[in-house]
């Protein structure tokens, strides 16, 4: 049946050279209701079983071949058309785009979050108190009576006398009044840290009239200087994420602690920068001591029953020691270049599992 072969050759040749519209015509003329191939298929019904057995497969094969050719040619043509269109859509992919500027978290906030995270693991809550304080919470209750020389050392900012003449209001010179407020309002055992803004009338390269401090307070039974030392060591190791933190306690004086100690941390010099760890050199980082019995009593607690320790530390300074800023004044300038350089991303949330530093 060479006419079948011939038909297949003709149809395939026509498909191979047709465009999309031509293809549809060919499909109709071959496979449509009255198409040539359809017509051949209709002849199958009138054939003898023997004839059908030999001719049937050939006709079906013809239909398959034509159908496949049509699909393949169509896909090829469509692909060519798409390629042509896309070629015309080429853009310069080196053009700049607007990436929304990433925001930043200020180092002081970041360090406060780090402190909260570390101390939460040691069972410390975060306490707060007013920055506009009265004389009693800032000084008197902390065993600094009016004529005490330590008051003069605090360079206090005062507000004009209140009309009631009762309380002298001032800007807190340290976060220690939060100790008082906590002990007055809460029954021991107490473990808190109190970070926040503090103020002293002082201004040079290392002092600004506003700065940040964190206070720590533990009141319980049987607390000793040994617990203080452990807490500070544990805190600093976690904060700097180093095991070679070495502390040196020096006897000192704060009216609200007795005994009192200043705490130096050891550091080494690497590439001209101070790196915390080791004990080549010492720098003062903390003031601390056992809470003075008079302070405990001033808060309405029995100093024979309760004792504990307190410490205070500059947060700005902690940030500088860890992240390397060298000018305190820049902390409060709001220069976006500085903020982008020293700031942290929104997702730098301190965690114990990931390490508190970022």
């Amino acid at each position: 049946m060479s006419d079948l072969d011939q038909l297949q050759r003709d149809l395939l040749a026509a498909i191979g050279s047709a465009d999309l519209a031509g293809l549809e015509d060919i499909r109709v003329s071959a496979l449509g209701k009255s198409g040539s191939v359809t017509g051949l298929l209709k002849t199958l019904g009138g054939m003898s079983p023997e004839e059908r057995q030999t001719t049937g497969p050939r006709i079906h094969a013809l239909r398959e071949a034509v159908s496949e050719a049509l699909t393949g040619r169509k896909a090829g043509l469509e692909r060519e058309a798409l390629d042509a269109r896309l070629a015309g859509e080429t853009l310069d992919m080196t053009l700049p785009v607007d990436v929304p500027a990433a925001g930043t978290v200020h180092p002081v906030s970041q360090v406060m979050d780090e402190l909260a995270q570390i101390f939460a693991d040691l069972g410390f809550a975060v306490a707060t108190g007013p920055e506009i304080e009265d004389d009693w919470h800032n000084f008197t209750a902390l065993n600094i009576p009016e004529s005490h020389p330590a008051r003069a050392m605090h360079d206090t900012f005062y507000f004009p006398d209140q009309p009631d003449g009762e309380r002298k209001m001032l800007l807190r010179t340290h976060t220690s009044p939060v100790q008082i407020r906590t002990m007055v309002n809460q029954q021991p055992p107490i473990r808190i840290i109190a970070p926040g803004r503090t103020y002293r009338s002082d201004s040079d390269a290392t002092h600004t009239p506003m700065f940040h401090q964190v206070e720590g307070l533990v009141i319980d039974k049987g607390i000793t200087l040994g617990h203080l030392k452990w807490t500070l060591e544990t805190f600093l190791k976690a904060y700097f994420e180093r095991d070679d933190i070495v502390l040196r306690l020096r006897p000192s004086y704060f009216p609200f602690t007795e005994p009192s100690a200043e705490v130096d941390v050891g550091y080494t010099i690497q590439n001209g920068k101070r790196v915390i760890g080791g004990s080549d050199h010492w720098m003062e980082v903390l003031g601390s001591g056992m809470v003075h019995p008079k302070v405990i009593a001033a808060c309405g607690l029995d100093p024979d029953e309760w004792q504990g320790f307190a410490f205070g530390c500059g947060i700005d300074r902690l940030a500088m020691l860890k992240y390397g800023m060298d000018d305190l004044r820049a902390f409060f300038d709001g220069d976006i270049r500085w903020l982008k350089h020293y700031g942290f991303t929104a997702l730098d949330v301190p965690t114990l599992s990931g390490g508190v530093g970022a």
Partner: protein
Amino acid sequence: MKFTLNWLKEHLDTQASLDDIVEALTRVGLEVEGVDNPGEKLAAFKVARVLTAERHPQADKLQVLTVDTGDGAPLQVVCGAPNARAGLVGVLGLPGAIVPANGMELKVSAIRGVESNGMMCSTRELELGDDHDGIIELPADAPVGTTFPDYAGLNDPVIDVSITPNRQDCMGVRGIARDLAAAGLGTLKPLAQVYRYPTPVRPELVEGRGELRASTGSARTEVPEVTGEGPGPDVRTDDSAGCPAFYGQEVRGVTNGAAPEWMRRFLTAIGQKPISVLVDITNFVSVDLGRPLHVYDKAKLSGGLVARRAKAGEQVLALNGKTYTLDETMTVIADDVAVHDIGGIMGGEHSGVSETTTDVVIECAYFDPDHIARTGQKLGLTSDARQRFERGVDPAFLDDGLAIATKLVLDHCGGTASEITRAGEPPLTLRTIGYDPSRAETLGGLAVAPERQKDILERLGFSVDGDWQVTIPTWRRDIDGSADLVEEVIRIEGIDKVQPVPLDRAPGVARPTATPEQKLERKLRRAAAARGLDEAVTWSFLSQAEADAFGGGAWSLANPISEDLKVMRPSLLPGLLSAAARNLNRGAGSVRLFELGRRYLAEAERPTLGVVLAGDRRPRGWQGGKAQGFDAFDAKAEALALLAAAGAPVDNLQVMGDAGETWHPGQSGTLRLGPKTVLAAFGMLHPSTAKAFDLDGPVAAVELYMDAIPGKRSSGFMRPAYAPPALQAVKRDFAFTVPAGLTADALTRAVRGSDKAAITAARVFDLFERDGVKSMAIEVTLQPSDKSFTDADLKAVADKVVAAAEKLGATLRG
């Protein structure tokens, strides 16, 4: 407080090295701030004798000297000093020495063709004085070949320690020596030995420990008083509160010349300029023993001296050249005519001693620490005397102090002493503390054997009886309880011996500690940073003008550090605006700053979040064309996004006007929960507000009032069951022409309210105004519940929507 090593050794018999002493000082709580050896830089300068002096062959003004340096052949040195001559003993700098005054290193050199092997120096070149008229001339018997610092006693390191306010006793070298002796660095010499009394004065007294005769309450002295002739000076105290005791002794016929070499050397080393022997004696005793004194020129007094309260308005010209106006709370020393001393703080100019002084009254008084502190604070006057009196000088040391002062005057100025006048009595009540030595361990964290504790306390001057009743030495006003004794024991035993002890730890994972407010703050901070805002920390205080631009502040400092930092901020925006202006002036294109902090209102400090958007929202670009500034809707978007992050019910918030005068009247608003609770203000700032901060362009801002945001209702972690609607929502659009004053919010609310069951959302998607007609198009979302809407249902809802809009004056566009 400065002193030299040799000065310390006057009181402390020790073999310890300088390094050991410095280390021990810091260890016991006397922090060493610095050690300076002035002799070090002069180590290469030697005492040398000029043997011959000849004219320089090439220069009239120069001489060629041969100089004996004490070893080897004489050196040839060229010198230009007019006083250089054979026989002169002076100071020679050898090659390699660095001249302190100019940092020049001496070298063998040829001066006008003649070799010079060093330089004969002037006092100015060695920074020992101002004289540059000639080279130094030493006494003829000065030992040639000795290094100059050794000869001149300059090899005496100056130690600077920081004395904490509780340690008055260490405001004197003797107190420091006592601490060091207690720390095992040597033995405290008896006071009589220190002041060169013929030994033994009082053989029963050892280690210079002052004790008290409790029976009489009077001080037991360590040195004998000077027994004088004739009646003591007429001194008395009429102010027993401010000046409980006023002791005086007169010395007649003195010569007020220069102080002895050793005294001048000590004073010079610590930076005090020698003035005259009488003045120097008072300064020396003040530093040596922490005992301030005053010496009056008797010829300049009219009548006796009395310690009394000043009269209001009374004035005195003090020794610092300033006139102080006094009030009736202040204690002064006055004669019949005038005030001569602000008691315990500073002497007066008029009765001070001079080189013509022949008769003096020496004052050794006890002033009450609190009085001194208050007077000093009021007058803003600090002095070495005030520092010591306000910390509390030893009330048992008046007799010794006066005896030593009079002895020094007699030794170095001659004259004859009068008898002593003792007016009033110093407060000599002995104080005792019952002490439990186990406290060293239970408070201090260091177990120290009781015998060792007793030894430490006794070395410090305490006395301890068999029942651990501890008597406090009169010079330790700071000690008043067990905790103080623990500190004494621990600091001498060594605070570094305290071993770390872990705090108890609650079982299990650490429990959360943050309060809802703290969690809110953290969320907002990180949400703001995630939205591209940079967190600033700005001053809590502003200038008056900045505060006034925001309605003024409730709190103004009485003593601001500057007028720029005076008023506590009533808003977070001023600080951010100033920061924005600084950034734009530095060339920043776009500024998006935020701050989380407090506003300081009359009644409370309120936690607040401020946002300032200035400059370009988007820079010019190939896509967007011209640069775009921020507008009020950017501010609104920030406000809503941050409120959403804070968990506020943003869908229920109402936008209202009344943001206030600092804002653009037509482009600002507040976000409220109900009519009263304002959660935030947002919009464009009023141009005059921006201008007050030197911002020229438009500025958008947000202020978010964190304490107004309702807290999350605590209902555990379980969320409500998930139940999405079974049927899909349908959207229908409506376009209205509306009255010019109708707001989008009013229209969408009315539309939403027209069929609350079916309509779940209504949103403006198009807005235009043409020929005075405002047109608003609204997309309405309809949510079928159990069965799909029929055409009739949809028609009914549409009719309700149109009717609701018409009530507001809107008409459906055809």
